[in-house]
């Protein structure tokens, strides 16, 4: 979390209940905003992952998914070879156009590719570049955090 500056009125600093509510609202509002941004990164997917908000402690929020494909895309994969099963054939389509971009909160139509390729030889997959959705979304909302907290504080006065 980055350095944040919030103006705290005196009457709120002596009201622990209101202060607690302001912090909870800041956490909840920011979590909802982050969850929505994650949803944007998969808006054009056919099988959309679910991004859940968890509250492991009163003042902690975790927003994430257990979707394996999303994690793979977010973190990237190294280059690797793909071989057909013995006696089998590899089938894939080309030219593939991804639905997402590195460090971009959004998603587009993409394309699986119109040409079907059959091969009995191993192919070299160049790997998947990490999209870093989690990092770019965290950076964005770190910058907004003080403003959201100020709103939450102001709402309590």
């Amino acid at each position: 979390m980055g350095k944040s500056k919030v103006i705290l009125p005196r009457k709120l600093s002596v009201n622990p209940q209101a202060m607690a509510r302001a912090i909870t609202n800041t956490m909840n509002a920011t979590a909802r905003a982050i969850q929505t941004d994650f949803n944007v990164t998969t808006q054009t997917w056919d099988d959309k992952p679910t991004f859940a908000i968890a509250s492991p402690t009163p003042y902690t929020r975790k927003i994430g998914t257990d979707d394996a494909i999303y994690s793979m895309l977010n973190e990237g994969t190294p280059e690797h070879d793909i071989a057909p099963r013995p006696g089998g054939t590899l089938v894939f389509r080309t030219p593939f156009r991804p639905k997402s971009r590195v460090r971009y909160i959004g998603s587009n139509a993409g394309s699986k590719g119109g040409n079907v390729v059959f091969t009995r030889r191993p192919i070299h997959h160049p790997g998947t570049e990490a999209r870093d959705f989690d990092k770019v979304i965290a950076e964005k909302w770190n910058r907004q955090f003080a403003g959201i907290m100020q709103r939450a504080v102001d709402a309590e006065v």
Partner: protein
Amino acid sequence: MPNPPAPLTWLIARLSKLIATATGALEADYPNGVGDWQQEVSRQLARYHGAAMLAGAEVDTLTPEMTTAVTTDLATQLRFLDKFALEMQDGDTWQAGWNSRANMYAGSIKTPYWQGNVDMLPLPAMPADGTSTCLTRCTCMWDVTKLAGEGNYDCTWLLGATDHCQICKQRAADWAPIRVRDGVVQ
């Protein structure tokens, strides 16, 4: 899709005209006059941010909390304006995109307007606050329904009548509504 509120449209149109006039004068005198232009646009932004908050909240006087909110939003815009002015000062010929870029500042008063309109509720984002891809072009709105009891609201992000970005579309789907119960955002 709902139309933007008339008072907000009126304020934006007026501010837009003032900024366009100042920018037109700067263009004629460029590369001189950037400092004066920045001062004039800053002054108008300060006036109209306050006016937008008053119009949104439908009150005559800003509370200290409203003043803090206005100041926070204004500071963000003035930081952007500072960068823009530096870019202008560093250049030697007028750039075609500068007029429309300057005019985008008029749209920034949507944020204090909606903050006032939603009764200062601690919602995740405000239209045109820079957290959506459409930036100050955002035409979305909050629709807040006050429910029975203290601190109970249903807050729905409504898409504006014009084009909207992916983030706003998602907000309209996800924040329909955001529930506030006993003063706590759910």
